[in-house]
């Protein structure tokens, strides 16, 4: 469903991706953990086609239409209302926002408020809704928990669970092992542009993963 083959990319002398290869099958969620500057965001941008890698290739089944993206920035227009934003982004995919989208994220009563008037946590929830407007088959998530409170994080976790259960794929990058582990079927550690670990989670919990992560990346970073 998603394939990365020998990806390499540098910005000037900084190597952001160094021979990264993996595949993600339907139903899989790959969590990539790494410290800041390890190349996680570059990896997602290459997968999304926002950056042409200098070497190697990335392929997402269904192309741009199949990708949903949640990044550092909400990608919303602050002056427009929640509903207008969602309708605009859906229209670019020739789609309508799913009717239950707002209720699944607890946003019903905010539909007619401009995004600029919302709190940071609500904006992040709208950003998640925005990524789901066209019912994407592959989700690319860059630190999606930033700004979410516990309840919102839980409902977001449930959404991702439904996404995976429907036979869809996701790649999640974060520096926070605690938050990412619960959703992952597969785990990778990234350091200086390289995957230093890539394996199924197979029953390991957050504590196990965190210990493995510290061993792989080095104590200073964790």
């Amino acid at each position, binding site marked *: 469903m998603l394939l990365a083959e020998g990806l390499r990319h540098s*910005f*000037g*002398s*900084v190597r952001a991706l160094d021979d990264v290869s993996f595949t993600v099958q339907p139903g899989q969620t790959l969590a990539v953990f790494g410290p800041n500057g390890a190349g996680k965001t570059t990896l997602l941008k290459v997968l999304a086609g926002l950056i042409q890698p200098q070497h190697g290739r990335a392929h997402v089944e269904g192309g741009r239409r199949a990708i949903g993206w949640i990044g550092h920035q909400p990608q919303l227009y602050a002056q427009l209302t929640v509903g207008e934003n969602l309708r605009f982004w859906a229209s670019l995919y020739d789609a309508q926002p799913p009717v239950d989208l707002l209720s699944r994220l607890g946003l019903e009563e905010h539909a007619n408020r401009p995004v600029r008037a919302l709190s940071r946590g609500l904006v992040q929830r709208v950003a998640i809704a925005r990524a789901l407007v066209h019912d994407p088959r592959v989700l690319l998530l860059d630190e999606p928990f930033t700004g979410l409170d516990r309840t919102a994080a839980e409902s977001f976790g449930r959404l991702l669970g439904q996404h995976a259960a429907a036979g869809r794929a996701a790649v999640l990058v974060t520096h926070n092992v605690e938050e990412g582990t619960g959703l992952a079927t597969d785990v990778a550690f990234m350091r200086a542009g390289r995957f230093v670990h890539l394996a199924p989670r197979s029953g390991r919990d957050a504590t196990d993963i965190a210990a493995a992560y510290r061993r792989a990346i080095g104590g200073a970073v964790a």
Partner: protein
Amino acid sequence: MRMLRVGRWITAIALVLLAGVYVRALVYTPVEQSQGLAQKIFYLHVPAAIWAETAMLLVGVASIVYLFLKDPRLDRFAAASAEVGTIFAAIVLTTGPIWGKPIWGTWWSWDARLTFTLFLFLLYVGYLLLRGAIADPAARARFAAVLGICGMCLVPFIHFSVYMFRTLHPMPIVLKPSAPSLPGSMLLTWLLSLGVFTLLYVGFVVQRYALSYLNEQLEAAGGELGHA
């Protein structure tokens, strides 16, 4: 670095030759009858004008190829050519009024050719300012290439629009379709001067190119140290 030395040598030779051309122009070439001594500046003014415009054309061509190949050497060349073009345009803009004061009786006359060079100069300044305003080398190269291509395409439009204003300028006397109307010895001096300016352009560009290459190496080394 070898390239930098080569560039310095070419420039030095060109400057010596330029002095030689001017000895020839002042001592051995006849004084033009209607304009007198002021005409001597023409051997500096016209070749500089030709290379100021050609440099923009080369910036544009290098930019087009850069967008296809993404080869940093092309970007370095475009930047070097633009800087040298700026200098040459500045030479034209200084020598023009010096000549214009005794002949036209005014420093600045909004004559079409000088006005054209002024806009060319402003275009170069914008190009160099844009380069200076972007830190990321890849984005800098892409943005500069976009502006360089637009600049090249703008040149004929500026030509056309400033020429629709009436011009005071002496009409082309060297590059006109019929035989050149310049006396033989003046033409020879002028051609020598054009040759010297070509050499000057090459010398300056090679030096500028070598310097920006060294600069990039230095930045890269600094980047590596910073990330170690």
